[in-house]
């Protein structure tokens, strides 16, 4: 069936004049798949102005070719125009596979395209493989990440969103060459919604932390001491999602299935129960030390060293000792 469907496309999500890292990670993975299937990698960028430069960057990260759809309506991401433009391109060029980063906008977009074109879609994949005849096998995490379903699409293009932080970002290779082409998909529809405000803010990137201290709900009454501890150690500070939801810590530092994936050499985890949705963000940690007051908390059995004890008491002692050194 895949006969007329050729190539692997990667949706290159942009923020301003940058391709975001999750897209570049997908490019890296696509390159790896292409070693096996001998597919051409095509990056697709939507936007308005300044896109050629991004095309060149995508080529240096692993694209063989880049398609650009340029239109004033596409300057900022919006579901309806983006979904329509990409759907038309997919129908016209018939790639075998299209991968999207599983960012919030990536998922917003892919879900819409799936229904528009009646295509199967594998979600938030953390593992990808391809058969020699071009069938994509995609690992979808379920139940917070405890179980992975290996899925397959029955339709072409095969579609998957790919979880950020799971696959490594490839090296930039300035010697790579490829073509950047503009494609025409006809008149693009209006968004049907109006963005009255769009605010970007600086976020601390904890995903590359070498060492991290993590606070959970157990320490909610004094998250500050855990932050202090991280500071004194020169480590990054992370948290569980409920602390972000409550506004006690920034949104972009929670770890887990819907948050960041971290792979530190060491993690000190305090007042965290160890829910499946949290654990799936920290499985890559080399060493885990945890402090939890409840001897039955699941986090104990997912630790290399664990303490049954009161974080409010142990953390100050630890701070004292570190300062004394």
């Amino acid at each position: 069936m895949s006969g007329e469907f050729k190539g692997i496309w990667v949706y290159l999500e942009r923020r301003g004049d940058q391709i975001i890292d999750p897209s570049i990670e997908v490019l890296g993975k696509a390159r790896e798949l292409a070693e096996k299937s001998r597919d051409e990698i095509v990056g697709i960028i939507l936007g308005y102005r300044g896109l050629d430069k991004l095309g060149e960057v995508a080529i240096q990260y692993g694209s063989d070719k880049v398609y650009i759809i340029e239109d004033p309506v596409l300057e900022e991401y919006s579901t309806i125009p983006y979904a329509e433009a990409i759907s038309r391109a997919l129908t016209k060029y018939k790639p075998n596979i299209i991968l999207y980063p599983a960012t919030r906008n990536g998922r917003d977009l892919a879900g819409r395209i799936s229904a528009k074109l009646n295509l199967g879609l594998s979600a938030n994949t953390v593992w990808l493989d391809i058969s020699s005849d071009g069938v994509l096998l995609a690992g979808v995490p379920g139940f917070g990440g405890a179980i992975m379903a290996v899925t397959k699409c029955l339709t072409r293009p095969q579609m998957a969103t790919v979880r950020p932080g799971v696959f490594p970002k490839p090296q930039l290779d300035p010697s790579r060459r490829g073509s950047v082409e503009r494609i025409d998909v006809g008149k693009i529809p209006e968004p049907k919604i109006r963005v009255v405000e769009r605010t970007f803010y600086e976020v601390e990137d904890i995903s590359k932390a070498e060492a991290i201290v993590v606070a959970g709900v157990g320490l909610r009454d004094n998250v500050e001491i855990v932050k202090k501890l991280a500071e004194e150690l020169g480590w990054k500070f992370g948290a569980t999602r409920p602390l972000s939801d409550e506004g006690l810590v920034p949104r972009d530092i929670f770890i887990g299935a819907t948050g960041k994936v971290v792979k530190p050499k060491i993690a000190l985890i305090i007042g965290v129960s160890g829910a499946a949705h949290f654990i799936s963000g920290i499985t890559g940690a080399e060493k885990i030390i945890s402090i939890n007051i409840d001897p039955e908390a699941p986090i104990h059995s997912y630790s290399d060293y664990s303490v049954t004890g009161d974080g409010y008491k142990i953390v100050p002692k630890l701070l004292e000792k570190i300062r004394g050194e």
Partner: protein
Amino acid sequence: MHIIVCMKVTPKPEQVKLDPVTKTIIREGVENEINPADKNALEAALQLKEKHNCKVTVIGMGPPIWESFMKLAVAMGADDAVLISDKAFAGADTLATSRTLAEAIKKIGEYHIILCGEESSDAGTGHVPPSIAEFLNIPQITFVSNVEIVDGKIRAKRVLEGAYEIIECEPPVLLSIEYGSNTPRFPDFRRKRWVDKEFKLKILNIKDLELREEEVGLKGSRSIVEELREMSLKERARQKISGTEEEIASQILEIIRPYIKK
């Protein structure tokens, strides 16, 4: 305005295990709950209802055992609940699920706002909300932490990685509500008694929705599960550290010393 909340029932993730031999999910003894993000969606709907006198209908596509959870949503304050249930719907992927829910929504009649959860705690795709919106040909605003009705327009705060957007839109629109964005209320005791005694849950099957078997369930799916794998979690040393707080702190310090940066 009429608000429809799409609600599913999910097993508590921590209790789910794979049968090592059959590689299927062991469902016995696993507790179910209203999908956590859908509870937030329902709460958002009920808050709009209180302010603007909206009608709230909850719909779910699932097996008959969901009945008690659909009723729970009514006890929490929803006006009506519809369970979409038929053997033919089993095994649906996100595409078939969305198509079925969209058809059910059309059957239910006039609507202004459709609320979903941001994602389900079992499948966790977050793809159903945008797919429903496409099938209904209405706009969507996903990952919403706050929604208001202002002069008949919908105004929502959408949260992204390191960014947020304030979006305005004319109804009808579909929103997916962020998990943890509000505190869901408990069922009202008196209302619960009324529900148990008198409330009749509507059940719609494939004929009611005028769908064909090829369009729903496993047959209507365009992605299939080849196999399930337990994610092999790294074996951890599980060493216990104990003693007085002083001693514990010293032992932790010994372990982390090589990693201290300052």
